[in-house]
């Protein structure tokens, strides 16, 4: 589905990614782990065309490196940023509708379904997005991206700063969209969640892939955990 090959990326002047190679298969949840500053968020931005990058990014066999973000989005890639980027002055409903790229082509996810999944969003449909709680904003952003009918979503730290109950809800939602045939490339800091829901994981350290494998392999590999993930 997604093949990233020798990706170098830059944030301002800093050379953040030094040749990252990874892939995400159809229907998979793949997690990208690592400490802050390891280059995880920049990797997602580079794939989405939002950061300066060199190297090859193939999506469904097509080279998308160098395309503009909106062109990449139209090819079926969705992006949920770390800061959630809710449009604060628009209502929840309007926020969701903005996720729709082509109003004429209905996607896998409809407004009603989103509301059914998260009744809380329906209750607050007419409330400005800016006044939602952190957890609600996260749900909103995830749902908004789903409205665009993506085949693969890049999700950046969806559980950051959320209460444990909400964290579980987010994880549940990710599994739900996986069930509907959407692949996920997830950046996560909480190792526990990543191990629970992913099929495969990559660990980034200093802009390079230092581990790639299954959750079981990572559980056994204490050296990688100690060196690159734990305190």
């Amino acid at each position, binding site marked *: 589905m997604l093949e990233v090959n020798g990706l170098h990326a830059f944030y301002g002047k800093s050379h953040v990614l030094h040749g990252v190679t990874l892939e995400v298969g159809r229907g998979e949840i793949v997690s990208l782990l690592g400490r802050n500053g390891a280059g995880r968020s920049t990797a997602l931005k580079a794939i*989405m065309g*939002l950061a300066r990058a060199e190297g090859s990014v193939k999506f469904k066999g097509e080279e998308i490196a160098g395309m*503009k*973000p*909106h062109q990449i*989005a*139209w090819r079926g890639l*969705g*992006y949920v*940023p770390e800061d959630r*980027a809710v*449009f*604060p*002055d*628009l209502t929840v409903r*309007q926020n969701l*509708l*903005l*996720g729709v*790229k082509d*109003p004429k082509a209905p996607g896998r996810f409809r407004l009603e379904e989103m509301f059914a999944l998260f009744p809380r969003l329906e209750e607050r449909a007419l409330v400005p997005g800016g006044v939602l709680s952190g957890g609600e904003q996260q749900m909103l952003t995830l749902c*908004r*991206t789903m409205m*665009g009918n993506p085949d693969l979503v890049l999700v950046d730290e969806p559980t950051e700063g959320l209460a444990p109950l909400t964290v579980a809800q987010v994880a549940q939602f990710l599994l739900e969209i996986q069930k509907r045939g959407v692949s996920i490339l997830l950046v996560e800091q909480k190792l526990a969640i990543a191990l629970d829901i992913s099929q495969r994981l990559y660990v980034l350290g200093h802009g390079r892939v230092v581990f790639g494998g299954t959750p079981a392999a990572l559980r056994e590999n204490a050296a990688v955990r100690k060196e690159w993930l734990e305190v």
Partner: protein
Amino acid sequence: MEFTLISLLNGVTYGLLLFMLCGGLTLIFSMMGILNFAHASFYMLGAYLAFQLSAWLGFWPAFFLAPPLVGVAGALVERYGLRRAHRHGHVAELLFTFGLSFLAVEMVQLVWGKAVVDYRVPPSLEGTLFTLYSTSFPVYKGFMMLVSVGMLALLAALLAYTRTGLIIKAALSRPDMMQALGHDVPRIFTLVFAGGAALAGLAGVIGGNAFVTEPGMAAAVGPIVFVVVVVGGLGSLLGAFVASLLIGILQTFMVGWDYSIIDVARLFGMQLHSTSALTRLSLTQLAPIMPYLLMVAILIFRPRGLMGARS
């Protein structure tokens, strides 16, 4: 009473016209961070195009054709000029629009000459709408008011209720996110720029014949437009609206008041006997610099403007 009402009507008409100029400028500024120095040139272009088109086709076709044509000019400027200047930073953008405003005056002179052109109110809109005591209110002023209010209402509705409006509002706050959601933000920018230019063009169409259509008309309103934007608060549409009306009304009143500063002081119980040039000035004479004085006052007491966000 009579004076107050008529001045108020005139002031509101002028203020609304100002807002048609400042509204587009503010929208463009808050979206792209570009202060379009040439914005008043679109106003001038609107007036001249309307003059030419009404000479060929009559007023009504000109009224409907000129603003979209100005919009197209705006789109071309954004697409082929500003986007390139943007690479060199904000100063280059500002200088580009500054150069453009200069060139616009030259081009207008090239085509239509340096003199005032004969762009007149059409006969169908001549005459008196109503007479208040002894002062008559012309039909055309009413028409100007109607067009401004109608246009602004239409735009407000467009922004509030259509998908395009929604996309524009969202792109104002998070252009990067809108890109990632699959919206072509550069195209939206061009659209907004064109829209702002067309709005300025419309102001020129209905203002050019009410005032005068001449090469100096852009330079005459340009600085005032900037003052409105500073007074209202950079990037605030509501602020621009309030400031437009405020300046429109204040200036109209001051033109009508023939009191000197001594008279005003007397109102407050002060007796000034000085005969210096300053105290002999009348409010009418002060009217042209009133907007600038207001700007300085705002800068001293409320640097972020009436409605501007705290920076």
